[in-house]
């Protein structure tokens, strides 16, 4: 097994790769190609679909009604990524560089919410932000408001739920990157006269870039495709692309439009990843 270092294919290799080629080919690629084909089809009145080359499903997205949802989705996902970075970076930095012997315990404390069901964490906010929930009662206790405010079913509630759900996804890769950081580099920069601020922005931060990239991707992708959190915390007023796709497949039964939206979401997100890696990757190289 350890022997075959050649370039060619062997029977053994085919045996190793056969199962994955079958499973991902049939249950990952074929379905993706199907929605690509469906996205150019025409939905029948009763839910059937006629294949063809019909671009109207894609043009429909530019309808102001739908465009608003696309823009809102990208805005909330971007805001969520930035907020997670702002909250997560200092914490990851603290654990990795100042954690000392508490390091493992502190990172374990981040992993527990990370592994806790996203659904339950969204539920926690449904309870807290709900009509007579903890948030409202705290505000009333503090005298900020007399009557319960509408906190749930707002874009703010969705953002809150998202930051809460995805923060660990940002902290863990940041920690992994900062943990490898050689503290002597920081000392060297300071010995050479850099202030703490300069040291951070010109030495520590650029070197932690792989973690920033990985964390941002891990937060941005699922939050742009999210439909549980806007469903539970946003209600009908904060609809995101995920909710729109779900509606097309389950309620409206317009599979052609739903497929076009899914293809757009996938292309948009994978494109964003490539762009981000190139862009930030290039700057990182220049910085070194």
């Amino acid at each position, binding site marked *: *097994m*350890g*022997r*075959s*270092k050649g370039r*060619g*294919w062997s029977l053994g*290799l085919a045996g*190793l*790769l056969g199962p*994955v080629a079958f*499973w*991902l080919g049939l*249950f*990952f690629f074929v*379905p*993706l190609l199907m*929605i690509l084909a469906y996205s150019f089809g025409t939905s029948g009145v009763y839910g059937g679909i006629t294949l063809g080359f019909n671009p109207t499903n894609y043009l429909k997205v530019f309808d102001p009604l739908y465009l608003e949802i696309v823009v809102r989705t990208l805005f909330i996902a971007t805001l969520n990524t930035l907020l997670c970075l702002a*909250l*997560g970076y200092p*914490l990851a930095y*603290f654990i990795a560089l*100042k954690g000392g012997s508490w390091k493992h315990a502190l990172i*374990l*404390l981040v992993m*527990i*919410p990370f*592994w*806790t*069901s*996203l*659904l*339950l*964490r969204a*539920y*926690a906010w449904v*309870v807290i932000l*709900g009509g*007579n929930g903890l948030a409202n*009662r705290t505000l009333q206790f503090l005298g900020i408001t007399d009557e319960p405010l509408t906190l749930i079913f707002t874009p703010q509630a969705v953002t809150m739920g998202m930051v*809460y759900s995805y923060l660990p996804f940002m902290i863990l890769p940041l920690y992994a990157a900062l943990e490898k950081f050689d503290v002597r580099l*920081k*000392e060297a920069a*300071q010995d050479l*006269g850099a*202030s*703490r601020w300069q040291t951070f922005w010109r030495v520590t931060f650029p070197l932690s870039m792989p973690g920033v990239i990985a964390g941002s991707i891990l937060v941005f992708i*699922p939050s742009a*495709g999210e*439909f*549980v959190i806007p469903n*539970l915390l946003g209600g009908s007023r904060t609809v995101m692309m*995920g909710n729109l*796709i779900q509606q097309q*497949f389950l309620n409206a039964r317009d599979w052609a439009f739903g*497929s076009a939206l*899914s293809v757009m*979401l*996938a292309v948009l997100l*994978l494109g964003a990843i490539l762009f981000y890696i190139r862009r930030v990757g290039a700057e990182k190289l220049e910085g070194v």
Partner: protein
Amino acid sequence: MAASSTKGGPVYKGLGKVPDWGLVLFAGLVYVFLYAPILVLVFFSFNSSKSTQVWTGFSLRWYGELLRDQSVIDALKTSLTVGITATAIATVIGTLTALALTRHAFRGRTIADSTIYAATVMPEIVVGVSLLVFFVAAGLALGITTIIIAHVAFTISFVTIVVRARLAGMDSSIEEAAQDLGANPLQTFLRVTLPLILPGVMAGALLAFTLSFDDFVITFFVSGVGSSTLPLKIYSMIKFGVSPVINALSTVILVTTMILILGGSRLFVRSERA
């Protein structure tokens, strides 16, 4: 530059000597943010009244009600069946894939590599609806079988990545030595390679099980009406209205997760050391 070092503030030699209280405070607040909502959830699972907001006294009544709820028990059984079956299949396929990617150089390896990563970054909702479209077109009835197929499809890549990380850190000369001593490829794999990568395989399996057990979005699209996993059940309970029963269920899941993480982190530590 030289001048600024003389007029600069304190000279930092070594870290941690000057505690940065701002940073400590900030880190503490982020931890409070991460834990307070979960703890509120757990706290109200012990409430004696039906409220998830106002404390009226301690009681275990919601845990009793949870145990008597047959639909929750059924959903748990479905989740365990799906999780165990999907994990077993995905772990075998993922381990084989990892072996192919680390022990063989072949044409098309870059394509295989990118496929593995593409499967991990594809938005869940896109995977869910495309599988729904596929199953309907193929005439497969939605149910526990389609859920298992879908879960294997989205967990294979994660197992591959974890096992590959383990294999990459392993010295392949040990395997070569076994073969020089006359072991055939199968013997080499079973008696040398597998025991060495076992912690990685176990970690991959644990990851696959957790992802499967926790998955809502993909399952939501491929489950049909008859079979409900635990996350689907929780979702419909939340939609139906908040109740301390959900809090009790959350608490049970949380405690189980914590036990698994503590066990899992030992496994990871062992796989790093071994």
